[in-house]
């Protein structure tokens, strides 16, 4: 229970459905201590209070669990490392895979004898016959019924054992319906605004997190135009992200975007909008929700390279054969160009409503 309306309603629906529900607010980092004035983040102490009040309204037990160490190892460290390597991290993906449906499921099962973890994500899980699966059944991760709110992009990393222990009570609802449920029950979070920013970056500028948590300092380096011409200085490769347009400090007559970041050489290269369009890219650390790819070598699907982007039909081909079904690298050829495929960002494979799996966009050796 984050203290927002979604997890509040998820808890309410579980409880009303006769499930013995236990409310948990995860303390994941020290932002609540250091930014006591900050009111908006889902992770502030106010949020914990809201979650506590909702649990009280529902009459379910409520606890604060400290998962700072797990969040540090599973989310913060990769986040900081990605920027320092010139990539764009996907912390919410890591948080789902390693904290909410990793460390938390582990605690729920091993310490508290709970069967599953439920969250307020807009996504669905079902179970289908699959003669190729162990036991003849397998769990599918499906898009939430509300197309505007579908959060499966951040959930692609869940494995079968995790999906088996996951409940998404909001999967069939739309956001307006969720608010209505909250209002009808008089939940104190019913009218609470959405929180969008990264929970451990309360000011909204991830460079603050780099400074405070990784000792990052601005290290100016060459800013190159698309043809390699030196057009200025940047603040340090880690301060940029592919597709970025604001804050480049150059005016070249037509719009420029960050097209390539080379952290090792501390280089940032710009491009025109069309220079960032890609028809093929590689995806590393690929995992499949079924535990294996839909086909051993090549399969067709739709690909999403950012949350809520329209999935694009694609052909996906295996490049590496290491450890079947997990952590391989695959090449994606999209039917229509995708824009600003930032290395480190998640690329998620869909087939209709079903999430097949996904991975992280690899930095392209050719670019």
């Amino acid at each position, binding site marked *: 229970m984050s203290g927002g309306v979604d997890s509040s309603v998820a808890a309410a629906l579980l409880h009303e459905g006769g499930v013995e529900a*236990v409310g948990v*607010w995860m*303390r994941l980092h020290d932002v*609540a*201590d250091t930014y006591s004035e900050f009111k908006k983040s889902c992770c502030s*102490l106010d949020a*914990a209070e809201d979650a506590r009040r909702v649990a009280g309204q529902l009459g379910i*037990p409520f*606890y*604060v*669990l*400290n998962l*700072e*160490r*797990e969040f540090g*190892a*599973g989310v913060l460290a990769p986040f900081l490392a990605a920027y320092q390597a010139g990539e764009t991290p996907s912390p919410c993906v890591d948080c789902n895979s*390693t*904290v909410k*449906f*990793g*460390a*938390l*499921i*582990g*605690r729920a*099962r*091993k*310490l*508290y*004898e709970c069967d599953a973890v439920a969250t307020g994500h807009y996504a669905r899980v079902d179970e289908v016959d699959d003669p190729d699966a162990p036991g003849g059944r397998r769990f599918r991760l499906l898009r939430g019924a509300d197309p505007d709110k579908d959060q499966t992009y951040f959930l692609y990393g869940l494995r*079968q*054992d*995790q999906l*088996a*222990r996951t409940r998404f009570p909001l999967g069939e609802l739309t956001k307006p319906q969720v608010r209505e449920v909250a209002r009808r029950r008089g939940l104190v979070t019913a009218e609470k605004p959405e929180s969008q920013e990264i929970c451990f970056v309360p000011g909204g500028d991830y460079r603050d997190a780099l400074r405070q948590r990784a000792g990052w300092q601005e290290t100016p380096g060459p800013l190159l135009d698309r043809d390699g011409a030196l057009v200025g200085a940047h603040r340090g490769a880690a301060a940029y992200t592919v597709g970025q347009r604001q804050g480049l400090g150059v005016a070249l007559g037509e719009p420029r975007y960050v097209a390539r970041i080379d952290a090792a050489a501390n280089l940032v290269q710009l491009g025109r909008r069309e220079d960032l369009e890609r028809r093929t890219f590689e995806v590393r650390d690929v995992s499949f929700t079924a535990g294996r790819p839909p086909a051993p070598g090549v399969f067709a699907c739709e690909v999403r390279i950012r949350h809520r982007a329209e999935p694009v039909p694609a052909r996906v081909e295996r490049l590496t054969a290491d450890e079947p079904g997990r952590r391989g690298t695959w090449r994606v050829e999209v039917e229509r160009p995708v824009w600003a495929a930032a290395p480190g960002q998640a690329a998620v494979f869909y087939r209709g409503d079903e999430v097949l799996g996904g991975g992280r966009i690899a930095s392209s050796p050719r670019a």
Partner: protein
Amino acid sequence: MLPLLTEDFGNPSSPHAYGRRARMALDEAHEVVAACLSAQPREIVFTSGGTEASNLAIKGAAWAGRAEGHRIVTSAVEHDATLHAVGHLAKFGFEVVELPVDRYGRVDPDELAAAIDERTILVTIQMANNEVGTVQPLAELIAGVRRVAGRRVLFHVDAVQAAPYLAIDTQALDADLISLGAHKFEGPKGSGVLWIRHGTALMAQTHGGGQERYRRAGTENVAGAVGLATAYRLTCDERADTVKRLRRLRDRLRDAVSAVPGVEPTGHPRQRLPGHLSVIVRDADGPGIVVALDLEGIAASAGAACTTGSPEASHVLAAMGYPDEEARGALRFSLGRTTTEEEITRAVEVIPPILGRLRVGSVALAADPLGQEVGV
């Protein structure tokens, strides 16, 4: 308490009939508490709880004694109400000496005496520790201070945790200031007492009206004072029986809990509060155990209460020499006057398997902290 919140709602400082009735009740509360402490009614100041009582004692004594010195001596295992109060005074030039404790959490009387110099104005030591239940050798500690000090060094006793179980006789105990909190003996939360030996110089910390003989300004919480007084009187009347019974029940619980592999009691084995059991569960995490126990209807505590889930280890166990990785498994069970034989019978059945399960689960979690091998 109820009449003071309804028909007898007057302000005890008002001269009219409503005020007089409230004043009567408040005077009687002073008398009742004083009688329990073998003290005089005018030595009693009602406060908003143990924390305010200790703050008034420590800050009031420090500022009143500033002309004579600036050294304050305390111990490393005090409650935060004490440690944070003296820490605040340190910002204003007071010198704070924090005495170490032994493995059981006890202060050595000789070490305390050695810490007293001519600039020392205040000693503040608890009667018993809230986290590990250890009772301090207060008589010896005070005697040592009296022996070496050339003048009267004020001695404040934080008796908040001890008050339900240890009799306090201010004729026998040569202290100057004693803090009590009502909620520890079934009185109303938000009500406390500071006993101030007659003639002790103390600077008020709240200013306004002349209530409580100018030592604590503000309209009195009459209902809270009456509730505290009644609860304390009943506690003192029944103490001998309660202590005998709780010691037996606690020992039963202790034997069952310490039989779990990896569980060991903390604090002094004999010089401890009768209704108090504190243990360390190895490999496990106290807050996690508290959750598991609560889900089974057992209310326990992991060291001091913590609402935000911050991971600070107990300063008490650290002072007693426990490394962080052991201290994080700290767990405390409190028995009270209302605890029954049947409840302990259930507790000794329910708690040991949970502790065993938590230890096994915690070891498994440590091997796979991010749940990458959850298993279906």
